[in-house]
């Protein structure tokens, strides 16, 4: 069981879903706080679902308020960085580049990719926390 957990974790790192920040968070766990990372992850997914919703609505309206979109993405990138969600973070950065360039199509494309990465990470982490 332990070996399986280790393997799941290793693949998450090897495939670039997580970076060393995730390990830093695991270091903060102890016997008194054994579920710290899982708790942070829960907060992250709840918060990022809200942000995704906001961005979806803003994009659906068709009016590309790049400042507002960039502001949402700044928050998204921030929390993704804090949990070590590497691929999601990369998509956030790209989205912000498109915002700054005023490239609506680029934003839309990147956002689809971001949602995909986000959903994948969520599933993988659920699996990981269940196993450990």
């Amino acid at each position, binding site marked *: 069981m332990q070996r399986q957990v280790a393997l799941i974790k290793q693949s998450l790192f090897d495939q670039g879903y997580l970076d060393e920040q995730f390990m830093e968070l695991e270091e*903060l766990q102890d016997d008194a*706080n054994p579920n710290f990372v899982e708790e942070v992850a829960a907060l992250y997914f709840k*918060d990022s679902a809200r942000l995704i919703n906001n961005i979806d609505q803003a994009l659906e309206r068709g009016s590309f308020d790049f400042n507002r979109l960039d502001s949402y993405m700044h*928050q998204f990138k*921030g*929390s993704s*960085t804090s949990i*070590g969600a590497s691929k999601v973070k990369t998509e956030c950065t790209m989205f912000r580049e498109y915002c700054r360039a005023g490239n609506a199509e680029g934003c839309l494309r990147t956002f689809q990719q971001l949602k995909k990465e986000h959903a994948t990470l969520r599933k993988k982490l659920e699996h990981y926390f269940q196993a450990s």
Partner: protein
Amino acid sequence: MAVGEVMRMEVPAGGDLTVTSPELHVLAVDDSIVDRKVIERLLRISSCKVTTVESGARALQYLGLDGDKGVSNLKDLKVNLIVTDYSMPGLTGYDLLKKIKESSAFREIPVVIMSSENILPRIEQCLKEGAEDFLLKPVKLADVKRIKQLILSNEAEECKNLSHSNKRKLEEEDIDSSSSSSHDDSSVKDIPSSKRIKSESENRSSLL
């Protein structure tokens, strides 16, 4: 913040300082719920008491600086360090820093700024305004430990200086009042050191 309220000092006759390890009370300000959770954990692991708030406005409210309550709860709060995110809606971390440094009651509290963006002019601006340090996010345990050490050693310096100046004062009084010509340190033992430091710092805060 009165220095004497944080440090418990024993000053034996020889004059060496022994500092018992105090618990810092840290006010952490961040609009990100994820980051608040992480910074709280980092600070708790570093044996600090933590209060987290989600905005600069809330931070000012907590300190009693928002004009509503005044500074009546000063003594109860005893915030020893403020750690704040830079980019927040409404009051930025920089705005908060400025308000704290403008306040006579709270300007002595060290303020540390956190930011995910490594922008040199921003860092310089904060340090110039009196920030103790600037941390790049994601903040690591090593950062927090370093900051804690910095704060504690600053306060130890201050206490040491206070204690030495107190000692000198007492010795001078002793010379004036005493008819004997001996000037040994035993006179220092008569007044408990924590009381001396407290009254000294009370004098200081009344001047602010």
